């Protein structure tokens, strides 16, 4: 490289550094300083883990609406004393799960990640999913890309303030539903050798997520909660293949549902797509039993630092009517 070229390179890199400083600074200033809806955070329910005491969450559950409808952290607490948080969002892709997990790992020393697998098959074109992956990564690395619009509401004295997360999500990310709208149709898990291919872009994000778990010594469990409308045996086979290849446990609750007393007539809120609170309780207790037999997780029920969980469980019981 000649002298002019070197000069130009230094100039370009210096300007990039200036931009980086501005982006980092604006990210800090515009990032929500609280994880409440009023504080400006997107999906406060999924981001309630920010205000849980540091390192108090052992299990992080991520995925789409199936996960926040069908997994009950407080049932798991009451029965096994495990602390978990459902950081799931509607239509959350694996790329988004990945960036959500990165945020969780900054606040909690997670022992187990449960990844709901329905999001593996979110159909989007390669370009769209690449765009989602880039968007998720940009938003995760520099919050100005996600929260830039907060310039409208942010007060001058908030700009330099350190975050103070105050939201208290009693249900720990679960969407509580007392609705009952049963599924009356036939069996959807008809055994087959066919496979529905996991999209390439999802596999790329999955590989990143698996690697991140391995690097941080975190166990990973694939979970599919009962969902008549979005699940099939072809999908089960595809996830099983991937899980076997990577040595990951895959728990599919669509198979052998009778073993945990699941009933499509009473345990779904919308005719077979999502579980209601009753369905979530049954599924979670089954998962809890499996976890207690296979993972060395700590029972925190006797620990005074976790007494808030008992109060939350009481409040949860008051809200759950079915």
């Amino acid at each position, binding site marked *: 490289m000649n002298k002019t*070229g070197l000069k*130009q390179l230094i100039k*370009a890199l210096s*300007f990039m550094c*200036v*931009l980086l400083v*501005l*982006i980092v600074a*604006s990210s800090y200033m*515009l990032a929500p300083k609280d994880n409440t809806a009023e504080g400006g955070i*997107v999906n406060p329910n999924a981001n309630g883990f920010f205000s849980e005491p540091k390192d108090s969450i052992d299990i992080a559950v991520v995925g789409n609406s199936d996960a926040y409808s069908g997994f009950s952290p407080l049932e798991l607490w009451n029965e096994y004393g495990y602390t978990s948080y459902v950081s799931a969002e509607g239509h959350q892709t694996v790329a988004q799960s990945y960036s959500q997990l990165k945020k969780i790992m900054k606040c909690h020393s997670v022992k187990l990640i449960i990844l709901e697998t329905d999001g593996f098959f979110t159909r989007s074109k390669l*370009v769209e999913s*690449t*765009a989602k992956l*880039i*968007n998720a990564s*940009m*938003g995760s690395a520099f919050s*100005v*890309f*996600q929260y*830039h*619009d907060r*310039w*409208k509401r942010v007060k001058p004295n908030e700009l330099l303030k350190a975050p103070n997360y105050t939201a208290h999500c009693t249900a720990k990310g679960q969407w509580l539903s007392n609705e009952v709208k049963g599924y009356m149709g036939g069996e959807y898990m008809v055994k087959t050798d066919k496979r529905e291919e996991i999209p390439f872009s999802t596999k790329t994000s999955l590989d990143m997520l698996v690697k991140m778990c391995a690097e941080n010594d975190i166990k990973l469990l694939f979970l599919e909660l009962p969902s008549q409308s979005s699940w099939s045996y072809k999908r089960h086979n595809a996830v099983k293949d991937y899980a076997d290849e990577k040595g990951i446990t895959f728990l599919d609750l669509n198979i052998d549902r009778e073993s945990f007393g699941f009933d499509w007539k009473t345990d779904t809120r919308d005719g077979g797509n999502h579980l209601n609170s009753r369905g979530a309780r049954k599924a979670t207790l089954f998962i809890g039993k499996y976890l207690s037999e296979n993972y060395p997780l700590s029972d925190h029920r006797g620990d005074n630092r976790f007494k808030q969980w008992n109060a939350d469980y009481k409040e949860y019981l008051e809200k759950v009517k079915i």
Partner: protein
Amino acid sequence: MSYTSYTYLLIFLGAVFICYTALPKKFKWTVLLISSYVFYWINSKRLIIFLLLSTVAVYFAGVFLNRINDTAALAKKGLEKEEKKQVKALVNWQKRAVVALAVGFIFTILLVLKYSAFFAHSLNSAFGFLHFEELKFMLPLGISYYTLQAAGYIIDVYRGKYRASENFGKVALFLSFFPQIVEGPIGRFDLLADPLYEGHSFDYDRLCKGVQLIFWGLFKKTVIADRVNIFVSEVFGSYKYYSGSIILLGGLLYTLQIYAEFSGCMDIVTGSAEIFGVPLSKNFERPFFSKSVNEFWRRWHITLGAWLRDYVFYSVSLSRPFMKLSKFAKKHFNEFLGSLVPASFALFFTWLGIGFWHGAGWKYIAYGLYYYAIMTAGMYLEPLFAKLYSALKIKRDSKPLNIFRVARTVILVVGGMMLFRADTVGVWVGMLKCVFTSFGAGGFLKTALTLGMDKQDFLIVAVGAAVMLIISILQEKGINVRDSLARQKLPVRWCAYAALVMAVVIFGAYGPGYDAVDFIYGQF
């Protein structure tokens, strides 16, 4: 893959630039060709076949025209004058047949895919006994642009402006070059060929200038155009619920939206092409400083206007029936009307073409004819205006008159834009009626702030529009803003560039709470 997406800006453009820079000079154009087809495939998938079909037709037509010209040149050698005339007539006939076939073929694709449902619907509505199936096809990306570009190329070869390229890949690149395939500008082969094919080495200044222009385009698109979209959609979607003052604001904001968006897109694509050393034709030249609608259309979507002028207006003007009409007019009318009647006849086809090109619908035809009516009225009333100015002792180039003319043009253009955006001509008439009969300025502010834009949105749009206006005024005064900025000291330059980037990052209407807005002109 939108021009404003990270996928385009960071991955696609970045990867193409690296490959283009890395390859030897003589292969650089192939990088542009492959990337253009990849871009097209990503956006249009199997519909790429129509682009290929048009390319094949135009390529072979060009090759045939070359052969005919070469054979004729050989055959003419040693012939007598009369024999040469005969050969020329035969050659002209052959060339016309080739051009007619090629242009007919590519326009048939366009007409069938874009207009068949409209024709079928119109015929079925007009004649109750007809029952044509109203087939709606998926439109290949940029078909209205590349079809015109392809037709222009082959007509120019026919007219002897240049020789057709006999390299299929190069013709394919000319028609598919990714920065201009979505919304133009409609390119000319004689201007684009060399920069596209010759291959340029890495140039730091060119790269910087291209990136700066891309960010300026992003500013217009994401900070201004996309921010007013919700308001505009609401007003035009449910105009009956709003007073005339709100409808007028909707019309003004839509005019701002379409200008910021279309010219912003042109900046992004011109910047993208500039990175590879390819200068694209200018499509805008500060149209809102125009003193007449006529001038406005010379400054707005310049390449479309120029295309229609060169290939429709001139073709009609030089056609036999038109010449006859011209002779007839000159014989039967006075000098003024004798030249005006034929000109307005030729203009009619140009404006019908502009309207029809924009879309398959009566409102688009009405849109073209709206401008035709204004322009011809202006032409016919010109002597009257001249007398009026003279009687009132108003100088034609006085500042107040010019300001009045600019304001009048803006009002007429806003009216046209409202027709362009309204669902039907009936809706447009209804909206105008509201503006004139129930203006209802009371409660204006309160209502305006409930239609998807809050105070801060209006503020940022106003600031953005003011920045655009200031830059336009400077350019109108002959100042090259980019060059002037480039001459400033480094801290000043960097502050300006960083401010532009951060304005896009912070004030852009993207991410949570905003739906991605497709480019309006990308839908034609």
